[in-house]
């Protein structure tokens, strides 16, 4: 008896260790996959929350700014507009375009509606979202575009880390780093600059901010620009990460980013990051551990559960 037990125990231990190692590889891989998606969703969620904070407006056109970011970037890289730019200038160009688009939308459509009922602004954003998507269809056609790494630097797809079965590409590292960097930059901007102080003031009480001399319209325009930059960056990174862009990509991303913002608590920036992260991780782990096709709905089920428990969102303000 005593002789038999030890080898059996060893075998069991070894097989458990193997299972643990194998499953931890999958776990880590899904964690990375989910963190990348989460970072992208967090950027869009931040755009929603920033604009909501200062303008009390849910801007559904963020999905389309995301779309334009990706399309303009790749068009500049591939010479669609007649000029071929290298990676850096194309990135700057696309981001600048998104910022301008954000400001333009605010000045032309939302400023006249500042004192109108909230629903008027909301309907306008939905209308703009449809118009912008169709504009993209007119410019680039309905075909989804797939590219094979030729447009982005080759090292992006190479593994940055490879151990056991775990593979982390440079691209995943860059997206996670860029998301973290953007968040840090945003934090600095909001808490260490005059503009940031004005933004916080407007989001707390617009009338009081105006009374103490804050130029509310300029602040709101600035926030629209920043939000558009975040959404555009997310689109650019998502397009490169998946090496495919299509005129339909903005819609799903916009909805998921909005849901992430709501789960985190609309208007709260840490909440937006938290919501985005949850959204990405649930999606990756859902697809990784639960057999599809149910995992697509899992993100939204999780959100409903969270909202049932905390109706104001995870980091929402108490109303």
């Amino acid at each position, binding site marked *: 008896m005593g002789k038999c037990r030890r080898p059996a125990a060893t075998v069991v231990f070894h097989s458990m260790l193997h299972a643990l190692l194998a499953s931890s590889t*999958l776990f880590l891989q899904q964690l990375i996959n989910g963190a990348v*998606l989460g970072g992208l969703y967090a950027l869009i969620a931040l755009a929603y929350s920033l604009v909501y904070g200062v303008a009390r407006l849910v801007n559904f056109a963020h999905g389309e700014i995301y779309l334009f970011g990706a399309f303009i970037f790749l068009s500049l890289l591939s010479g669609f507009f007649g000029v071929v730019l290298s990676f850096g200038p194309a990135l700057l160009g696309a981001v600048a375009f998104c910022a301008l688009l954000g400001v333009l939308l605010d000045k032309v459509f939302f400023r006249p509606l500042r004192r109108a009922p909230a629903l008027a602004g909301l309907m306008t954003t939905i209308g703009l979202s449809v118009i912008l998507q169709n504009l993209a269809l007119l410019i680039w056609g309905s075909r*989804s575009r797939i590219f094979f790494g030729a447009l982005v630097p080759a090292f992006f797809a190479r593994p940055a880390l490879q151990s056991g079965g775990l593979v982390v590409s440079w691209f995943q590292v860059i997206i996670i780093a860029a998301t973290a960097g953007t968040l840090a930059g945003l934090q600095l901007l909001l808490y260490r600059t005059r503009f940031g102080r004005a933004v916080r003031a407007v989001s707390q009480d617009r009338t009081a901010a105006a009374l103490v001399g804050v130029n509310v319209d300029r602040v709101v325009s600035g926030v629209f620009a920043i939000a558009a930059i975040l959404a555009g960056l997310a689109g650019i990174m*998502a397009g490169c990460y998946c090496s495919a862009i299509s005129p339909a990509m903005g819609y799903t991303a916009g909805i998921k980013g909005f849901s992430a913002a709501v789960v985190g608590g609309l208007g709260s920036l840490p909440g937006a990051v938290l919501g985005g992260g949850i959204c990405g991780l649930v*999606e990756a782990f859902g697809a*990784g551990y639960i*057999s*599809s096709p149910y995992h697509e709905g899992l993100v939204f089920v999780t959100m409903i559960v969270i909202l049932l428990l905390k109706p104001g969102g995870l980091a929402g303000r108490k109303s």
Partner: protein
Amino acid sequence: MKKFFPVLFLLLLFPVAAAGAGKTIGIPVVAPLSGPLASFGQGVVNGARLKAEELNTNGGINGRPVAIRFEDDRCDPQTAAAVAVRLASDPDVFIVVGHVCSSATLAALPIYRAAGLPAITPASTNPAVGRLSAIYFRNVYQDEFQGAFLARYVSRARHYKRVAILFAANDYGLGLKDAFAAAARRLGLQIVDCESCPAERTDFRAQLAKIRDLNPDAVFLAGYAPQASLIVSQARGLGMKCVFFGADGLDDALMLKNPDAEGLFVTTPFLADRGGAMVRDFVERYRRRFGLEPDWFAANTYDAVGLAAAALARAGCDRGKVSAWLAALDSPGNAYQGIAGPIYFDAHGDCLKPIFVKLVRHGRWVSAADQLQP
């Protein structure tokens, strides 16, 4: 778009030409000529045009010249139904060649059935097409046959034991997956995982990481080329080395542009280097006429137009007689001789045709060394 203008031009010319000649017989050919799947339509247009030109140099249909009338359905069910209504109500239309996408064919089918108008699809593989209408014929195999063939091929010719499936969440992907899985069970081929890909998804790393852990011999991509191309690239990025394969939905030049698709194999109804003298002849004539290699859409449309013309010639310009003549082609001995083998129909209007396997090697399609015939 440039390639589209000649088609438009033809469309505009047609009524004039028909009125002028008086005695031409029009054969409508419906395909996606614009929209996201317009690349499918190019082969259809060329194949139909080549057949019509050859028919006309040989005296047309009983002395009357043939005019192909191209219609665009964009692979969109609503547009397809609108085109079908127009054709069904035209007294000068006795047979239709089309549509290409299964969803478009299924939308047009009830309209043709109600009007008693026979049709031949050169490309729709959804099993329902044959079951829903006795006068909708096809000279392409259907997905139940194709899925089962793939299972037999990977198990018998490739000796794979464990396969994972990633299927597109549409009629085509679902049908293929079910047929493959059913045949796999009979053959003892193990399906280690089955994952779906929603329509707009472009990131498949989560599903792939899971499949990588299960370490299958191969992954079956039951869907269309755009998603499949992304899947193979992302799989290579995750360090996956296994073989990928799919059905005719992956038979697209897009796969050739993707360096990660090396070794991927697909089923196809037509291979230029397989088959007899008729195939070689056809490929030669097609190359000379268009300066291109014929794809399977071109080959099947060439045959479908030939079959339609033969039916009109033998049965006369009458929808009922044309239907009856086609339905009477029911055995290898009583068949229309197409370039890719004899064409004859079962009770559903479905046809048994050989399936070939080809693979991507150095950015070109080459026929697989180990073909498997039923």
